[in-house]
């Protein structure tokens, strides 16, 4: 009698699926409630690769010795030494205070100019589209181009602005605005204000278009003047966009050293040194990536604290 050979048992899951047939268990997963999680795995991996890993790596870097030109020092963990060095580093404190001044003054100026431009553009006047494009032009210019244009216009010998000021009698000779520590940061803020205000104007204008005109008509019937309508209708209508725009702009300004790099290079004598520029110099002039990482972590913490405070304030306001 022939004996039928017994087939080897294939491994199966608790649900009875053949584990050697991926198509079968993938099909099972696709009908399961975990399917949604499965689908977002690529996104999570992507976010991990481009956000979480670099951030974590940057933070870890700040606790390491990482001077690329000094391989003899190794790359070991040095604890909080970079942070301790920072406390003793006078340039760090100057850069921290300058960062604060730079951000507060720039955002204030951009906010004011942007709001004024948005209110002016939110009218049905002839040629308003052309004016809108012209007002937005500075935003289209890269920082490098904007910086060089202004550096030339403010040049003490060739600059058209100095020439105008001399002809108007405000100056007796061409002034080197960026060579004077009393004016360098202020002028850089004005350049930044010119370059950045269209961002505010654009978003404020979009928000203004969303405020119903009936509200203004009703306010007028109730006897409200222009100023009252602005305080009672326009500003509350812009509140959420103001929060969002200010946060985005603060993040942008804290992180971007390009304009100051072109206009002043942080000088004269660190008078316009800001944290982002100092981190850039530490990394790419001194090749001290560990210290640059620690400076970046400080910027990161400042931005986080600022965001949390601002969001809480805006939530309270909304309530």
């Amino acid at each position, binding site marked *: 009698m022939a004996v039928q050979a017994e087939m080897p048992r294939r491994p199966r899951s608790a649900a009875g699926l053949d584990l050697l047939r991926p*198509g079968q268990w*993938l*099909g099972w997963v*696709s*009908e399961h409630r975990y*399917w949604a999680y499965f689908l977002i795995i690529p996104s999570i991996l992507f976010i991990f690769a481009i956000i979480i890993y670099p951030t974590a790596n940057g933070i870890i870097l700040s606790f390491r010795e990482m001077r*690329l*030109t*000094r*391989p003899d020092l190794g790359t070991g963990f040095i604890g909080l030494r970079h942070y301790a*060095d920072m406390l003793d580093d*006078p*340039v760090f404190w100057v850069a921290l205070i300058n960062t604060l001044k730079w951000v507060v003054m720039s955002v204030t100026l951009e906010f004011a100019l942007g709001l004024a431009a948005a209110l002016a553009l939110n009218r049905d006047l002839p040629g308003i589209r052309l004016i809108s494009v012209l007002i937005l032009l500075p935003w289209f210019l890269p920082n490098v181009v904007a910086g060089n244009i202004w550096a030339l216009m403010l*040049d*003490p*010998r*060739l600059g058209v602005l100095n020439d105008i000021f001399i002809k108007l009698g405000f100056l007796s*000779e*061409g*002034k*080197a605005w*960026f*060579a*004077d*520590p009393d004016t*360098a940061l202020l002028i850089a803020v004005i350049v930044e204000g010119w370059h950045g205000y269209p961002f505010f104007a654009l978003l404020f204008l979009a928000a203004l278009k969303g405020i119903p005109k009936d509200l203004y008509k009703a306010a007028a019937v109730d006897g409200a003047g222009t100023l009252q309508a602005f305080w009672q209708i326009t500003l509350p209508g812009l509140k959420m966009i103001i929060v969002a725009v200010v946060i985005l702009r603060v993040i942008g300004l804290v992180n971007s050293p390009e304009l100051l*790099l072109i206009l*002043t*290079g*942080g*000088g*004269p*004598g*660190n*008078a316009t*040194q800001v944290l982002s520029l100092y981190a*850039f*110099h*530490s*990394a*790419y*002039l*001194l*090749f001290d990536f560990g210290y640059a990482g620690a400076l970046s972590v400080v910027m990161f913490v400042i931005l986080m604290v600022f965001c949390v405070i601002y969001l809480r304030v805006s939530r309270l306001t909304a309530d």
Partner: protein
Amino acid sequence: MADPLTASRRRFLQAAGATLTAGMAARTLPAWAAGNVTYWHHFTSQTEFDGLEQVMGDFAKAFPDVTVQQENIPNAEFMAKFTSAVIADARADTSMVTSDRLPDMVALDGLVDLTDRIQAWDKLPFFSDAAWSGITIDEKMYGIPAFSFVSWAYYRKDWFDEAGLAPPETFEDFVEAAVKLTDPSKNRYGFGLRGGDGGQSMLLDVFDAYGALIYENNSISVDVPKAVEAVTFYSDLFTKLKVAQPSAPGDSYRQIMEGFRTGQTAMVWHHTGSLTEISDALSEGQFATTLRPAGPSAQIARVSYLYNGIMSDRNLEDSWSWIAHWGQVDAAIAMLQATGYFPATTEVADDARITSNDLYRAAIDSLAIGTPMPKVVGLSGWMRNSMLPEFQKVLVGSATPEQAVDAMAKNLERTVR
């Protein structure tokens, strides 16, 4: 009957799996190919680009099977790009190299050791020991000299003649001439002081003229009393004597050259690289060239060579052909004619086109006593990140020379050691 949604999910999974498999199976194509050589440089002016174009044209005739792809990287960002490329292993084949950056580039492991090739190269004897020493670290050679920059001073010959002054030979002569030729009412200043970006090189020369830096065993330290003297001398030109232009603390190359070209300054320090620009703006007899004045400790005539090195060994033969081409007579003459840059090879340095030109006399004299830039790891970063800003503070009155030197020395301790 199959649920259409489920079927669709399965098809999606099959498609995703197939795509993933295909992606994993696909071989990443190299970004380079044999016969192509990428070249990073930081040329900026039109004349430099004209010279580069001629050199590339000559190379294309000599090596028709090799194509050079040049990429311009702004000088200020060059090391940032270089560092990122080394870290990410996205190197160019070849790159421009300067002596002051060489220690950092080698420490970053960014250049290929070319010692054996250079030692076997038939053009080796045509370059001076000084030229080779600028590209050598620990007896390893990392590039080939392309052309040279010889530091010198430009002065307004017509103004000097008018005032009965001779070109300054010492710092005392220099100050005397600067004071005599300064007349703010005419917007005329004795010296175009470079206090902005790039000014650190001139400051280093002043430090060395005072013997304020001590170089030992590939390291460096500050002689504080001498450094204070050096900073005091150099800053006094602006703060006390007021013989430098009011914009000095922020002025970089463009501003000091503009000041000299437009008749606002009587003297300016630079190197042979700017001769073409000055010659285009001022006529013969209006200006002349001379050696930099001697300081209390030394007369500094910096001779720096610009080199080309190889960053990656993936295309070594073609890369070598390209950088070696820069050492040929035709390439050197092409650059000289386009830019006025001095040849690095002695094969052409005695050429009548150079020796017969009086303006080049100062360069030839400088070559005789010329010293290369010191090669210390971290020096260039310290010069830009500490030396210059601290000096700027003295210029704008927010620090004394003593305070500035103290901060420089403290930073040097951390940076270099």
